[in-house]
């Protein structure tokens, strides 16, 4: 099945792997050959992959034929017969040729010209663009692409949980990223979404609630729920079983939706699938083309056409903070941030701490909050408490429990100043970034919060808005973190101290001069975190912001405890300024 993927940038199209396989298997047909030529002519990265694939193909032949020769026996034999002559040759220096062969003919000049032009061709500028296919798990490090050539062929040996977004299973513990799923075990996905990667390259995104079971590297059952399947070339034959039908991939993308009665809908987004239903004990096989949808009944009722919809198809998991890494103490508790991985508009980036844009707390008003624990510090901290408001890479420093309001403050934020009484100050905290952060593709900043199991498992809810609002801007309320307490990515914190103040403080200066006392830490804390998209605040794509205002949502007795906040580097390509798009992405 030929797929039309526009090559507007230098990407490696998904179909290329399938075409390369057909070259190796010598099953390439005319139309596919033309498509291969088209791809290779347009894309230097595709040519690079093609050449490496062909080298591998040839090397495999060599490796299995017990020698380095791949040419016909006659030629191999002939060359072996020349061995004695080669011994003579080895005694001759390479430079001796230069004195003997110093004239060029027109013919060789023309051949040499081909070589020279070929070798001297400048690198295509497009090649330097950071390009990653949307659902290829390549990683962009610090805005520079790690070649997808290495990442994309790295298919697992087992059926693995390749990604998750806020996912939870009923009874089963959430497997770690990249770990194998159990064959023949029914998983109940009760929250979030997961991506399951099969060794053939087939990728399935399941959304909660869903009941599913993996049978083999090419087959799974969806007993209930929705899944989006992408079976690239090479994964043809991948099967999804439902109570009502069997869906066999023929190189495509499709969705399967199963309800409680087992009624199953199949929508083919791209390519072709074969479906098998059992009617009165007989198999009825049909092909379903792209843009078509069918509903299959779990009884002997014949399937029927339904209106096609591609809305339910998910190419990727939502943009989110995927994971973070840091330095730990002797007991494995995390102390500092080393790097984090985030999905921005479907592309995965990893940033070192040094690449992030730090922020300082420049205003703080606790009003509206009953909490008085305001500082988190490393154990036995003897430093300056003012430094706790400054940006650093530690998870063990920060100013906690700002005030807030159930409804986000949309008017002007009242900050301390001459003639401003304490009770007029807007509760919350102002974050000033050390350089402006730009509304780029996907999320633009990250907030980490310290949390325990008795706090909201999703993370402490908060409002966030530009400090100075312009027309079209609005606060965003985050009630669910990307990495919440239930995520295997939430890491336990190293030991720390808490310090409380005796009064509810009105502003930052008051906080620093208030009398402090230790507050006992008796619970185990973890670091939870979430990425936030500036588009959600109505900030146009490409616009910068330097100051944000953070408030607790005051929906419970627990306030937000931010221990690390930073912006992400700018990504060149901008999304349209649409907060609706960003809402949908979440």
């Amino acid at each position, binding site marked *: 099945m030929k797929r039309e993927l526009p090559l507007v940038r230098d990407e490696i199209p998904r179909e290329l*792997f*399938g075409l390369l*396989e057909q070259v190796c*298997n*010598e*099953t390439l047909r005319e139309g596919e050959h033309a498509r291969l030529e088209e791809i*290779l*002519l347009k894309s230097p990265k595709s*040519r690079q992959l093609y*050449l*490496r*694939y*062909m*080298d*591998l*193909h*040839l*090397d*495999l*032949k060599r*490796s*299995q034929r017990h020698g*380095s*020769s*791949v*040419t*016909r026996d006659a*030629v191999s034999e*002939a*060359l072996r*017969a*020349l061995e004695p*002559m080669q011994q003579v*040759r080895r005694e*001759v220096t*390479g430079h001796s*040729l*230069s004195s*003997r*062969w110093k*004239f*060029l*003919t027109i013919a*060789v000049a023309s*051949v*040499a010209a*081909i*070589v020279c032009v*070929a070798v001297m*061709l400048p690198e295509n500028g497009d090649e330097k663009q950071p390009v990653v296919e949307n659902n290829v798990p390549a990683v962009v490090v610090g805005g520079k692409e790690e070649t997808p*050539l*290495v990442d*994309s*062929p790295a*298919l697992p*040996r087992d059926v693995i949980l390749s990604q998750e977004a806020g996912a939870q299973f009923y009874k089963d513990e959430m497997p770690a990223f990249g770990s194998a799923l159990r064959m023949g075990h029914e998983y109940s996905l009760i929250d979030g979404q997961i991506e399951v990667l099969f*060794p053939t*390259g087939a990728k399935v995104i399941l959304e909660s609630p869903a009941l599913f079971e993996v049978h083999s590297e090419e087959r799974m059952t969806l007993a209930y729920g929705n899944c989006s399947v992408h079976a690239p070339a*090479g994964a*043809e034959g991948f099967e999804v079983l439902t109570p009502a039908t069997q869906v066999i991939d023929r190189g495509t993308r499709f969705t399967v939706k199963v309800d409680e009665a087992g009624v199953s809908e199949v929508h083919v987004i791209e390519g072709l699938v074969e479906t098998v239903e059992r009617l009165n004990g007989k198999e009825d096989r049909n092909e379903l083309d792209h843009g078509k949808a069918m509903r299959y009944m779990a009884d002997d009722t014949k399937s029927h056409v339904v209106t096609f919809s591609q809305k339910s198809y998910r190419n990727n998991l939502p943009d989110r903070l995927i994971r973070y890494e840091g330095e730990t103490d002797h007991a494995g508790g995390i102390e500092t941030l080393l790097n984090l991985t985030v999905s921005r508009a479907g592309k995965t980036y990893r940033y070192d701490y040094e690449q992030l844009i730090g922020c300082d707390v420049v205003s703080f008003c606790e009003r509206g909050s009953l909490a008085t624990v305001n500082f988190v510090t490393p154990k036995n901290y003897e430093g300056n408490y003012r430094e706790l408001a400054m940006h650093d890479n530690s998870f063990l420093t920060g100013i906690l429990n700002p005030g807030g309001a159930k409804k986000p403050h949309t008017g002007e934020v009242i900050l301390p100043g001459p003639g401003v009484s304490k009770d007029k100050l807007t509760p919350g905290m102002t974050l000033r970034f050390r350089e402006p952060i730009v509304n780029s593709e996907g999320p633009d900043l990250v907030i980490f919060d310290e949390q325990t199991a008795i706090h909201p498992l999703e993370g402490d809810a908060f409002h966030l808005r530009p400090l100075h609002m312009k027309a079209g801007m609005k606060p965003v309320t985050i009630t669910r973190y990307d990495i919440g307490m239930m995520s295997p990515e939430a890491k336990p914190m190293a030991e720390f101290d808490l310090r409380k103040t005796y009064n509810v403080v009105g502003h930052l200066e008051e906080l620093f001069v208030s009398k402090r006392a230790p507050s006992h830490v008796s619970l185990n804390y973890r670091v939870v975190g979430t990425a936030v998209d500036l588009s959600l605040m109505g900030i146009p794509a490409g616009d910068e912001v330097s100051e944000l205002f953070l408030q607790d949502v005051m929906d419970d007795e627990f306030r937000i405890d931010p221990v690390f906040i930073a912006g992400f580097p700018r990504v060149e390509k901008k999304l349209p300024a649409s907060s609706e798009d960003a809402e949908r992405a979440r």
Partner: protein
Amino acid sequence: MALETMIWDQTGAFDESEGSRECYEEFLGLFTHHRDRIYAHIFALVPHEADAEDIFQRCSILLWRKFQEFDAERSFLSWACGVAVFEIRNFLQSKRRSRLTFQPELIEQLSADRLAEEELESDRMEALRGCIDQLPASERDLVKVAYEGTITVKDYAAENQLSLQVLYNKLAKLRRLLLACVERKMSREAHYEA
């Protein structure tokens, strides 16, 4: 006919003097040293074994004919690959191939790309052998079936009543795994060398 004799007979470019013989030895030394890489270059541009071998043979003779024009200050491999591209174009034009072949523009571009990478290549074969050794026995067996050349995958599938598509899928998975493994090993070597 041995290649040596074939080349010598078909060219007649030099007489039987000691100088010509010495020159021939020079050529054979260089050619033998680079032959696998020249063949790999041709195979990458014409990925069909029989055609690639025909071209390789023709190219071998042409290289000897043109050898007096080779500038020893330059890379023999680059020069030979340039001659090979020249020969590929002749071959494809003269044969009016029914088989699917790349257009000349793409062949030249691929040749240029490959030569640019050739300089960076270390021993791929050694890396590949290491990767194959890491495969489970059943997967090593499949690689052997597919590449040993004693039976086609299609015939193997038919003989053993296996699904051809499933075998192709498994081979696709293996090639990708091996490619990733070779890339990893080679980049690790490059790192050590640096």
